[in-house]
């Protein structure tokens, strides 16, 4: 016993060091699980406020580019206005369209902080619980897919963008419909990989990649990027596909968060089916 106490006294600093390391790794591990409600992240109040101050200064620098983007988007939307179309055939008048039900609702938000130089990059946006955001909502902008909401606080949310190694989404080639898993390999923020596409599938460079809408997070057909390169690894049954992403993640300013109003119903049904199998 005395030897043991002597041992503890002699190596107390080392034991303290190990204890702190264990604590750190516990925190890392805990934060690793998807959308764990961790209270220490940049969606917390203090850091979020700091970041919105910073953003209020830096956004002036980008005003020119943001204005260009907004006016381009305005132009596109104006082209879709009802007023720009002439009725070719006015025999029919549609009243009370009960064939359609609203499935997605969009909410625009501003990116107040983002990182691009790490393996685990995150965005912070300035909308939170108060505006109805919840974890696992999809995030897009006019250039295509951005990511998925991770944590929400009262006024801020953090987003896992495509350029985070924990991000995955189901995506398909628009031309053929063959699908795979979109993942980032941690190297270049301009490119991501499409995994699990069997090597017999017809994919060529230049094909458009869109979301598949399988997970009830994003609608089907949101632009992701363009296939840049298709390589066939010897001995592998899958294509090695490099995708040039539609978004430039170092220039993100405005995004839209998508709420899927029918998500709960879809999830419930899928869970029930899975439960029946067991």
């Amino acid at each position, binding site marked *: 016993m005395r030897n043991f106490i002597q041992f503890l006294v002699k190596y*107390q*600093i*080392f034991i*303290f*060091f190990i204890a*702190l*390391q264990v*604590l*750190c*790794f*516990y*925190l*890392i*591990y*805990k*934060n690793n699980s998807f959308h764990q409600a*961790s209270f*220490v*992240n*940049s969606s*917390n109040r*203090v*850091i979020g406020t*700091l970041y919105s101050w*910073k953003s209020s200064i830096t956004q002036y620098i980008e005003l020119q580019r943001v204005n260009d983007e907004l006016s381009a988007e305005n132009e596109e939307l104006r082209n879709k206005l009802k007023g720009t179309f002439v009725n070719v055939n006015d025999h029919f008048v549609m009243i009370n369209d009960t064939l359609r039900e609203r499935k997605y609702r969009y909410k625009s938000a501003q990116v107040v902080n983002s*990182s*691009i*130089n*790490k*393996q*685990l990059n*995150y965005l912070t946006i300035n909308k939170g619980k108060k505006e109805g955001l919840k974890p696992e909502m999809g995030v897009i902008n006019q250039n295509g897919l951005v990511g998925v909401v991770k944590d929400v606080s009262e006024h801020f949310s*953090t987003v896992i963008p495509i350029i985070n*190694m924990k991000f995955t989404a189901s995506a398909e080639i628009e031309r053929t419909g063959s699908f795979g898993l979109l993942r980032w390999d*941690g*190297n*270049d*923020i301009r490119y991501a990989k499409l995994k699990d596409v069997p090597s017999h599938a017809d994919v060529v460079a230049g094909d458009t990649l869109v979301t598949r809408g399988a997970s009830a997070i994003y609608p089907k057909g949101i632009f992701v990027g363009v296939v840049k390169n298709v390589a066939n690894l010897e001995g592998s049954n899958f294509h090695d596909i490099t995708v040039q992403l539609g978004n430039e993640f170092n220039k993100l300013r405005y995004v839209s968060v998508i709420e899927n109003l029918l998500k709960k119903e879809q999830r419930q049904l899928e869970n029930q089916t899975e439960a029946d199998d067991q």
Partner: protein
Amino acid sequence: MINDILSNTGRFIFFIFLQGLILNDLNLFDGMAIPYLYIMFILMLPIETPRWLELILGFVCGCVIDMFTNTIGIHASACVALAFIRPLFLKSIAPRDGYEFGQKPTIQHMGFAWYIKYAGVLILIHHSWLFFIEVYSLNGFFTTLTRAVLSSLFTLVLAVLTQYLAFKKKVSDFA
């Protein structure tokens, strides 16, 4: 003593804000080199800091940076490792008759060559620890190693510059 506490608290706040609001956005070669200058706070702690206190300060400093980058635990772990190794390393590169009381681990006190050795090795240890925990695997070992080495060089250059620019006044105090 009180002076030490005040100046170190000031440095803590200064480096945290500098890192969190400016340096995290700075990178060279497409994200291959990122400066993590905030560890200057740990590197500039007095030589006679108690080891338990140094470990706690390292943990707190890392945790605050983690809050900015959403990577809870990663910076904390690397900073605790740095805080553990620093006193051992300081002892191993001590001058022949030990450190004088009140001597600080800065260029002004210890000279340029000593500082490059001191800061270079500790920054490299911290950055390697950080980057390898961040990728969480040994896949792409050489990519991660390159990132760690390039980032260390970047941080070291900034560290030396900071010593000459921000803390220059200390020279006249000491002389």
